[in-house]
């Protein structure tokens, strides 16, 4: 099937992201990339676990964490994962407008998460929990910050895709791009679930 | 008859290897001339693994030589197409199973010795009756503290022979590694934690090695890593106890020699901030910034590497950077005139516990 071909809901394949060789490559390659990312985060988690009690003279997790904010942020991100599933559902049904709409909601929720995280970080810094305060602080900001960086990159990526393709609609050239971006978004979400558990919940328990 | 032949071959092979290995190196430095329980265990493992490996190499070499001579393409064979063999399950099983057996033979003593060498229980008992030395590695010198005797020495480690000597190992600046090759393997001195292990110095073999073993830093630690040597005096228990007593009771002797007196003044002005002059030093380790000089005159080497004489001491005091690049003493005291060098040297050479 040729990538630039104009398609209708009838001719649009069931799995548009894997309909072309390029799409298949992108799909598989991105899964491998996520495999590498998993190892990356695993290393960050391991280090965090090794250093989380090394607070030096700085605050401990219990003294610091603002659970209401974190909980709200978690809800936003989890919901955004769900909305991106809707978007992909509409993509497969060749409903471009609805896909864009749900992607838009995903981006808004993601932006909300990011804003809350930035707010959370500034609060911590004001309370004397700087990056250079202790080994715990360094590993906390690096782990959570790396995730936050991924969220920011994901937002820019999805936005770029939405704007670039706003007038063109769906085809087999851009369908894999949308699909892979949503895959990335799910991955970020899964990582956050672990951060919420390992960093925040376990941190509050002590 | 055949069995006899095979045994004889094995024995001769092992002894030939032993001979080859034993001929190597200096008795005060070489791992191939072990001088204590720990080095002995490690040497046994070396011999065992070498013997197994030589068997492997021999088998491969024989097949290898046969193949490359027998099956080379000769004149007139340009168009010969050999039979395309897929493989052989029997052969493949053989060369999977035999190595596994060989490795098990090696793995069992490896695990056994690894646990044996990690047995440091006696040093952590409340009422301990063993010799314990706290080793602190620094850029580029070693401090040896005997916590049970309350004495400290540097650069020259003194140990009793014929018994296990236990060590607490750590570093004060960057990571180093504590290694006395002839007496046993190394252990890292980390900046994060204290490591523990033991060594045994065999009396007879210490005697043969001149009662002086060479110690080395085995972890890259900066420009003078190569020069971070120390010496180990292995004494019979009686002599060791005497040494400890002398160290405990050592007091600076007031000298009447005006040159020595001048040297002492210089020392008290420029050096005493970092160097202590009595082996009993109650300050915390953070305050002990430089080698303890309590028994300086009894040392084996200047700066751990140069022959112990006044000339080398002067050279060291004059420009330590030239002798140990990157050391922490350079530039911490004002330049010394020849006369001051002479005085300081004379003074330092009076610091003895003998």
């Amino acid at each position: 099937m040729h990538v630039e071909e104009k398609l209708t809901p009838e001719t649009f394949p069931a799995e548009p992201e894997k309909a072309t060789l390029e799409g298949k490559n992108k799909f598989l390659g991105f899964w491998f990339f996520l495999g590498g990312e998993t190892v990356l985060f695993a290393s960050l988690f391991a280090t965090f676990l090794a250093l989380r009690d090394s607070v030096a003279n700085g605050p401990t997790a219990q003294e610091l964490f603002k659970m209401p904010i974190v909980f709200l942020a978690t809800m936003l991100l989890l919901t955004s994962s769900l909305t991106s599933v809707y978007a992909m559902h509409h993509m497969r049904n060749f409903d471009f407008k609805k896909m864009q709409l749900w992607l838009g909601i995903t981006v808004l929720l993601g932006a909300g998460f990011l804003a809350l995280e930035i707010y959370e970080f500034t609060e911590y810094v004001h309370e004397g929990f700087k990056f250079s305060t202790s080994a715990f602080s360094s590993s906390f900001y690096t782990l959570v910050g790396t995730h936050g960086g991924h969220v920011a990159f994901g937002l820019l990526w999805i936005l770029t895709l939405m704007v670039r393709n706003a007038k063109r609609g769906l085809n087999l050239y851009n369908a894999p791009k949308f699909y892979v971006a949503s895959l990335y978004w799910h991955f970020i979400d899964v990582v956050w679930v672990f951060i919420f558990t390992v960093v925040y919940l376990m941190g509050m328990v002590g | 008859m055949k069995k006899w032949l095979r045994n004889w071959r094995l024995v001769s092979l092992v002894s030939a290897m032993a001979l080859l290995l034993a001929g190597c190196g200096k008795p005060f430095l070489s791992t191939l001339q072990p001088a204590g329980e720990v080095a002995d265990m490690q040497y046994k493992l070396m011999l065992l693994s070498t013997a197994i490996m030589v068997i492997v190499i021999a088998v491969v070499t024989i097949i290898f030589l046969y193949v490359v001579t027998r099956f080379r393409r000769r004149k007139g064979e340009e168009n010969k197409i050999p039979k395309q063999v897929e493989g052989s399950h029997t052969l493949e099983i053989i060369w999977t199973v035999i190595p596994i057996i060989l490795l098990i033979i090696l793995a069992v003593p490896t695990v056994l010795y690894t646990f044996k060498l990690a047995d440091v229980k006696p040093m952590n008992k409340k009422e301990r009756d063993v010799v314990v030395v706290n080793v602190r590695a620094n850029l580029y010198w070693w401090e040896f503290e005997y916590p049970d005797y309350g004495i400290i020495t540097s650069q020259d480690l003194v140990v009793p022979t014929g018994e296990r000597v236990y060590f607490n190992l750590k570093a004060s600046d960057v990571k180093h590694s504590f290694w006395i090759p002839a007496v046993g393997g190394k252990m890292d001195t980390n900046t994060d934690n204290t490591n523990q292990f033991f060594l045994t110095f065999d009396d007879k073999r210490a005697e043969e090695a001149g009662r002086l073993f060479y110690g080395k830093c085995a972890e890259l630690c900066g420009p003078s890593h190569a020069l971070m040597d120390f010496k180990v005096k292995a004494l019979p228990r009686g002599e060791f106890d005497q040494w400890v007593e002398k160290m405990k009771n050592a007091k600076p002797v007031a000298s009447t020699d005006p040159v020595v007196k001048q040297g002492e003044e210089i020392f008290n002005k420029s050096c005493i901030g970092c160097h202590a002059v009595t082996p009993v030093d109650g300050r915390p380790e953070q305050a002990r910034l430089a080698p303890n000089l309590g028994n300086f005159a009894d040392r084996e080497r200047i700066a751990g590497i140069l022959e112990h004489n006044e000339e080398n001491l002067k050279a060291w005091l004059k420009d330590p950077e030239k002798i140990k690049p990157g050391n922490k003493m350079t530039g911490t005291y004002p330049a010394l005139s020849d006369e001051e060098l002479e005085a300081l040297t004379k003074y330092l050479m009076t610091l003895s516990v003998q």
Partner: protein
Amino acid sequence: MSTLARKKGVGAVIWDYLTTVDHKKIAILYLIAGGIFFLLGGLEAMIIRIQLAVPNNDFISAGFYNEVLTMHGTTMIFLAAMPLVFAMMNAVVPIQIGARDVAFPFLNALGFWLFFFGGVFLNLSWFLGGAPDAGWTSYASLSLASPTHGIDFYVLGLQISGFGTLIGGINFLVTIINMRAPGMTYMRMPMFTWATFVTSALILFAFPPLTVGLIFMMMDRLFGGNFFDPALGGNTIIWEHLFWIFGHPEVYILVLPAFGIFSEIFATFSRKRLFGYSSMVFATVLIGFLGFMVWAHHMFTVGMGPIANAIFAVATMAIAVPTGIKIFNWLFTMWGGSIRFTTPMMYAVAFIPSFVIGGVTGVMNATAAADYQYHDSYFVVAHFHYVIVGGVVFALLAGAHYWWPKMFGKMLDEKLGKVTFWLFFIGFHLTFFIQHFLGLMGMPRRVFTFLPGQGFETGNMISTIGAFFMAAGTIVLLANVVITTVKGKRVGNDPWEDGRTLEWAVSSPAPEYNFAQTPLVRGLDAYWIEKMEGKKGLTPAEPLGDIHMPNPSILPFVISLGLFVAAFGFLFHNDHAWGTPVGVVGLLITLGAMFFRSIIDDHGFHIHKEEVMEAEKKGAGA
């Protein structure tokens, strides 16, 4: 759009290589860049050996020695061996599986440029205050104490080139899974392709821990982090673990492709199918798997305790089994064959005893209790040079001679090739064999000098003499390359005459599109099968038609350049006011280029059927 068979000026050629996404040209880029870094690393090795020729030598200073030593290791592993392995993979693997290109041609180019700029960045440290000086392992306490910017160059340079390697790994994984020609099942893939596949998987899982370690060190050195500062709760052992979780698989990342190269060469020049192919595949996968379980055997003396030491000791020994399987399979590939001693085959044959020595000393190192003696002594130096030089460098030299005609269309001179081989082979054993004994006699590694009277004099002198033999061999090789390039004759598809795999079925060098018609693969050693049935070419799997090709692009170069600029800025951000702005500008260049890549549609172009037919006619006549 087609650029086939057109004469070009120098500028156009340079532009062509800056923008190319063709795996064969990227292979040449990797070969040239990796070759230059190999010479640089070799020069550093010579400085080391000259300094250590006699006791108390003052050829170079202690501080400079540590820089040379660090850069020798770092350059040889990351900037010479890795890219040269990638050169072989790029040159051969797509053709071996019957593909027209790799899965991600654009990312392939990006991978190269990232490696290249990372390597250049690292080496600029020589001119900007001093090179890194904490060893290629850069253990945290020493590297944090290092006063110059050297370690910062190391940290940032390796991050950039590491990304490139990671991208390359993903690319080959997808290529091998998705791009195989019809009939090329997994169990018909040539061994080198298999090795590339497993190696790529190792890269994917081994490089992220290194990246994380480097990020920590960057944070500590440049941005006030405390990961490795015990005073604030940090722990330097974390660096050691992260480094070796990467570092040990890295050994297999290098040596598995070497095994792959030798597997091809043994089969070709014995004129015999690889003995025990399926067990070879199994052994390769098993080595790759076990490679991740053994990292802590580099840390036996750290004080992990006897339980961890014993477990890692036994796990390490286990790797000897699949490696042994391979050695015997190679021997029995030659058994009953018709062996032709070409230059590549000389390296392959010499590799067996050399690598066996490296392998058995590896098992010796694995015996934890005895390793307390070997660790950080010259015994270890000897061991890993037997593995890396006797395994990897021999393989790269063999592969270069073997595939040179396929890459450049000309054969390297066989006589000079054999001269190189003998010089290198003799020099190698002379240099490194004696070092086993130096280590056992108590000589620690990474020493800038040694004192007289410790029994180290003779051994070190012999070792230095050996190094000069290797240097001479390398010079002959360079001369060979120049002579061949100037005077060599063009060769046909199968210049060794015994080629078995698909790359020997296409012209030398292969056309831009590799295969005019995608071939149908009918078994292992696809080309050999066709030859044995008396056919000249491959059985096509498709009719002749237009061929779709990707467009060249300068963006990979720009993306990498941006990171290069950014690294400069951030490296100096504590010293100069311009640091941070320059860093941000660099990142903007990179992100901007990525943005353009994202919004510009790139559908590639087509080479028309007629052009293909014309090109094929020319190729057949050459």
